[in-house]
């Protein structure tokens, strides 16, 4: 079946990934007898890649900021003084202040939590849905596969931002949970297609036939033999998805259908800043910079992982 969504998307992993299970040969020369697993090879390669190290470092930094914002600022982002409204960056207020006179550095630091948690939460749940139903569809085939594939086609037809606007526009209260829920709802189809095609090719392997011949139950074959060998492209794509979802959340908040005040989020801060880009460009610059760096790190990490996990692309 043709699959324009994944096929045309060069950054996503090719859907017809096969040979994930075989030990890559050719360019990778095993240095010792036991060096053979894809993951061990990938890890050895990644450790030497500056892009991977940079993106991993940035991601760790952002996650630390998200978990313990207090490590980076002791200023309360909601302790605002109107007399300090719209100050330019200075020694006292590194990133300046916003219209209400809140310290912008503290706001930007505290904004990380929402973005990172939505990105990771949505990716985990969307990936879980995709893994469960994608492997069922790919492994069993037949009627179940057709039903799951058709339902996926339908959901796939609704772009995330468009669907997000329609659904979220109806919610009066929009917090992290509501926004995450809607993004999960709209985010799983691409991932499911990826899992399914990946499982389809892993299913053809001899060791699966061998397991079946030994009388091992289907559920166990999927869990122990198929999934571990078809997860590589899923992990690559999931990493990129975290970045894409963070970007989508910010876009929805910017359009006024995402998070609401008094939540602190980069998308909201950019939305608030848009009317003052001439008089106070710093209001746009700092949340935009943090947002871009975060999204960039996840996409860069996905790129590096793909290079390491899919030797054929080199």
């Amino acid at each position, binding site marked *: 079946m043709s699959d324009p969504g994944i096929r045309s998307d060069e950054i996503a992993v090719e859907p017809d990934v096969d040979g994930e299970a075989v030990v890559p040969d050719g360019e990778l020369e095993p240095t010792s007898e036991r060096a053979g697993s894809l993951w061990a090879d990938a890890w050895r390669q990644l450790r030497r890649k500056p892009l991977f190290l940079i993106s991993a470092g940035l991601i760790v930094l952002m996650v630390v900021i998200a978990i313990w914002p207090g490590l980076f600022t002791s200023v309360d982002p909601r302790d605002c003084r109107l007399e300090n409204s719209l100050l330019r960056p200075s020694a006292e207020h590194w990133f300046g202040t916003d219209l209400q006179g809140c310290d912008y550095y503290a706001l930007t630091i505290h904004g990380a939590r929402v973005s990172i948690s939505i990105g990771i939460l949505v990716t985990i749940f969307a990936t879980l849905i995709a893994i469960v139903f994608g492997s069922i569809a790919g492994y069993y085939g037949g009627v179940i596969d057709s039903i799951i594939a058709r339902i996926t086609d339908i959901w796939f037809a609704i772009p995330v*931002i468009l669907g997000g*606007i329609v659904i979220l526009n109806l919610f009066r209260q929009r917090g992290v949970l509501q926004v995450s829920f809607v993004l999960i709802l709209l985010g799983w189809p691409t991932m499911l297609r990826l899992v399914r095609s990946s499982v389809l090719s892993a299913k053809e392997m001899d060791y699966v036939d061998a397991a079946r011949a030994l009388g091992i139950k289907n559920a166990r074959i999927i869990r122990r033999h198929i999934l571990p060998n078809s997860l590589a492209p899923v992990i690559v794509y999931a990493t990129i998805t975290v970045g894409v979802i963070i970007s989508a959340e*910010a876009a929805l908040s910017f359009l006024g259908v995402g998070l609401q005040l008094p939540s602190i989020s980069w998308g909201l801060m950019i939305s608030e800043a848009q009317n003052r880009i001439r008089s106070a460009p710093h209001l746009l610059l700092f949340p935009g910079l943090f947002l871009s760096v975060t999204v960039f790190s996840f996409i860069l990490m996905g790129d590096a992982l793909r290079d390491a996990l899919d030797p054929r692309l080199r």
Partner: protein
Amino acid sequence: MGRYLARRVLQFIPVFFGATLLIFVMVWVIPGDPIRALGGDRRLSESVVQAMRAQFNLDDPLFIQYFKYIGGVFRGDFGTDFSGRPVLDLMQQRLPVTIRLALLAFVFEVIIGIIAGIVAGIRKGGFLDNLVLTSTLVVIAIPIFVLGFVAQIVFGVQLGWFPVSGIRQGWTSYLLPAIVLGSLSLAYIARLTRASLAENLRADYVRTATAKGLSRRRVVGVHTLRNSMIPVVTFLAIDLGGLMGGAIITETIFNIPGLGRAVFEGVQGQEGTVVVGIVTFLVIVYMVANLLVDVLYAVLDPRIRYE
């Protein structure tokens, strides 16, 4: 070919009805009173609520409601806003602006994207290749609204090369928004062209052509490019639908009065029916574009028809 076409169109029908039903269900059947949700914070009088219940057939069973609604969509009836103006009117007024913006973005991304891809793909691993790979990665990673605002501040406000917002200055006011709108797809096109070209340059027929003594220009320009363009062309077709949707953010930033801006204004002004109507329309455009891509792909690449 006929069989493939028929199968593909048949597959489209359930997807079309499924996706529109999904949107419909999400809007009208969610718990709570949809009319009041569409009205936002507005206090709707009892008579308005009654009129809207009748207008959207909310007292009918779900499926009857849906079929009346989709029948209306086929006739171009996307409902009315809260002042009674048909959403279709608004769409007719706004659509040309969005199409102009999307077409300009399209021309920009095709020309620059393909050239960048070819330059990178011909010498894989060279300086230009790395330059294209790095710059496209940066464009992919920066959210479009950050990119848009930065472009607006730098090129519009500080350098003064482009109009800052609105469409008062004729087609020049579309330039910067179109570049921003097209930038993401440009990055994909460049990467896709590069990968496809680099792969095809290793093919046997290219070696044959070179061995025959053809010039490098002819080998790359005619033999290889033609085959390498297949995935790119199909991406372009699907992207035209994507540009219409992507215009929501770009038009909001640059204050371009197109369909996307209308969605944003609908959200701000809590005109729920306007938002739902236009988004439904955009989703339909996107689905039809998807269908066309698959057909186009089969026309360009005979292997697809025989799977």
